[in-house]
């Protein structure tokens, strides 16, 4: 606090070198998980010769894409200091409602026989509606986000089973299943779309004023409000965006397994993996911190661990325990490597 020269430098001549220093430290923080991923690649290569093959990685990509898109949604919600457990139910309900309107009565549809393209619009609308209701209840109604979305999770999962009387919907038309099942050569379409969503969201968070406002709102909502940011509008908007992303993830999953089952989402309990990926990737549960590079590394890490356990022929009885333990370890490692930025005060 003594030298005036620093202050002058800050505002004047060495502005560019000042900037470089800032960028470097930022980059280091964002690739905190890289060493862990490298270790996993080595372990995978040792465990199975089938690991380092294009088809194996295409498979990992196919499997992780749906989860990844939901992780983007949850990360945004965590960044504004919120939380949404109901993304897993939206992930099941949105494709269920759409498929129900699309498929014929003989396949347990409701007989509307909607065009599959219109079905996708309905799917997005269901996502948006769920997000809007959550956002309004939490932000305008000042209800606790944990409880609201917990209740919503169960309501939506009930609807998912209720409208089709717990049947699974098969025979999905091709356009509806395209996103989750098609591929360009060896590269799954779902992976390409997921990568695009990660990149666009990452750029949005870094270069868009609303993206920057998300960090401000999550970091200190009162200060953000004092600086003229429309805090409530941004929060509600993020809940809506998060739920739409969950619906898109659900569409990918439905396409991948060529069906919408009553189990998709809530029944599988995917929300645990969603939170794990986001938090391993350095997204703070307290809001304001996180980025898409981290979130993507978290998703890749979970995908690699799952894949390696499969390839290593680990007994099905033990796979969950090992999976959970690896996640806890990764969390700890990310905390060490990532330093304070991944710490929870």
């Amino acid at each position: 606090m003594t030298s005036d020269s620093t202050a002058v430098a800050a505002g004047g001549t060495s502005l560019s070198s000042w900037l470089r220093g800032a960028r470097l430290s930022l980059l280091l923080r964002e690739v905190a998980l890289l060493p862990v991923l490298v270790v996993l690649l080595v372990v995978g290569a040792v465990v199975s010769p089938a690991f380092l093959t294009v088809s194996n990685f295409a498979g990992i990509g196919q499997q992780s894409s749906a989860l990844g898109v939901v992780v983007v949604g949850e990360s945004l919600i965590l960044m504004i200091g919120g939380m949404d457990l109901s993304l897993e139910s939206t992930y099941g309900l949105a494709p269920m409602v759409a498929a129900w309107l699309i498929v014929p009565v003989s396949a347990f549809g409701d007989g509307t026989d909607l065009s599959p393209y219109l079905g996708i619009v309905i799917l997005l609308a269901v996502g948006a509606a769920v997000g809007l209701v959550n956002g309004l209840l939490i932000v305008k109604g000042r209800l606790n986000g944990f409880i609201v979305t917990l209740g919503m999770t169960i309501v939506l999962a009930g609807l998912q089973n209720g409208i089709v009387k717990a049947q699974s919907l098969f025979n999905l038309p091709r356009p509806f299943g395209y996103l989750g099942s098609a591929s360009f050569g060896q590269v799954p379409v779902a992976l390409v779309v997921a990568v695009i969503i990660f990149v666009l969201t990452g750029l949005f968070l870094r270069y868009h004023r609303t993206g920057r406002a998300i960090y401000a709102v999550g970091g200190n909502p009162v200060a953000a409000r004092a600086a003229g940011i429309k805090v409530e509008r941004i929060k509600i908007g993020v809940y809506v965006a998060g739920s739409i992303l969950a619906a898109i993830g659900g569409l990918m999953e439905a396409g991948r397994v060529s069906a919408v089952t009553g189990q998709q989402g809530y029944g599988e309990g995917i929300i645990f993996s969603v939170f794990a990926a986001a938090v391993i990737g350095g997204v703070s549960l307290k809001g304001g911190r996180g980025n898409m590079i981290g979130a993507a590394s978290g998703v890749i890490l979970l995908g690699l661990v799952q894949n390696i356990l499969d390839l290593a022929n680990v007994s099905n009885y033990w796979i969950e325990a090992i999976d959970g333990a690896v996640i806890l370890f990764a969390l700890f490692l990310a905390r060490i490597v990532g330093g304070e930025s991944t710490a929870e005060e």
Partner: protein
Amino acid sequence: MTSSDPAGVEMTGVEKRFGTTRALHDVSLSLSAGQCLGLVGRNGAGKSTIVSILSGLLEPDAGQVRFGGAPAPRVGDIARWREWIATVFQHSMIVPDLSVAENVFLGGTSPLVSWRELRARTRDIMREWGFDIAAEALCRDLSVEQRQIVEIARALARGARCVLLDEPTAALERDAVRRLFERVRQLTAGGVAVLYISHHLEEVFDICQNVAVLRDGEMVLTAQASELTRDDLVAAMVGSAQVKAAASPAQREPRIRQRRSRGTVPDNAVLLAVENLTSDSVQGRLSGVSLTVRAGEVVGITGLLSAGVATIGRTIAGAEPRTGGEVRLRGSLVPSGRRDAAQHAGIGYIPEDRRAEGFVAHLGVAENITMTITDRLAGRLGLFRPASRSAAAAPLTAKLSLVASGPGQPVAELSGGNQQKVTVARTLAHDPALIVAITPTRGVDVASKALLLDSLAGVAASGAGVLLCSDELSDLVICDRVIVLVRGEVFAEFTEPPFDRDKLIVATEGMSNGKAQEAAE
């Protein structure tokens, strides 16, 4: 005043330091049964330290506290301490979700609670002292005044014969104050010793038999109230006025521009017009405040902490809703409680609590400074380059001599003074027509203080209006006018700078006689 009264409380030769700050030096006072002693002094004189020591929360470095001639229980043994002396703190210690009876006997019951007995004993106490509150009522449903009565009842329930009232009227309306006084007289008539701490000198003359004045941690005056005039009291509080004024920080800061008196300013157009503003904020209510700020004018608002000084700033800036009245900027109505709309209309806001409201701690300096102007930095589609943030922030960091390692350095890592500069820069960044600044120099070193005040004066010189809400009188040197609030109402207005420090103090204490009257409107 040495008392051999067995019910009395006595404090002799008490010293207390916090680090290098001397809070109390050789302080002695005594409370005797049936007497009310008024303790007065400016903010920071050491009143709160005395309260903490007498309440058994803080141990003096030297000296002792005696109850009825015997040494007091050891510090921390709150239960035994409460049998002697009970404190009604400035901030309510009531548990809102419990009933009146439970609050009265909070922490003081045997392990098994007999509800019937609890309520019966509460009713007895209420009846004995003429208080009219149902024992079964939930405290959250009570008014501020009633909650205070519950706290007094709690003190009496323990059998304490000595009650400390720490600024009890701060949150009360006029009628409630009058009723409180009646209760205090009842207490003293019933043989209770009362220590009455207040900023309002007229209250002290109203109900206290004796008065003690604390200044800079020393007891400078102890006398019977009837032997003193108000001027004596003020003189004792501020010290020998001339010497004190010369040593005040404001006088040592030649860099702060003294505003010229009544120059071109009054002819300028009215920028901000506030009409009959009301608020029921817990931090200080407003009951119908009207004021104007012209372009190029710096208007100061001052008063005691609870007088509504911060509330008026927050309400005008849209940081909290108003319950009535109008705020107009350049003639158009500013919506209530919408900070974003107020900023869009051209009202800048430098909040009181910079840690809570002034910045986002883990984000960089440049990002925080430009948070108010992302709409201007962003091109079509709302996108902008981080470098444009740094470029926009650079002139402001230079202007305010803000010291940081780079534009990306998290504000959390900066010193308090530099953090405050970030908050000020964030406000200056959007070129507001009016800046509402609430205690902008609190906790800032002398040099930074001068710089911050100078930058506010500079904003006014370039045609904007400034509303400076501060209880630090040395901030007011840059003002063209100063409005003094007492209990949420405009009490006096000073229109001729330089402002007389003593007159300001007298006015903030709510006294309009003597010298202050000339200035009061």
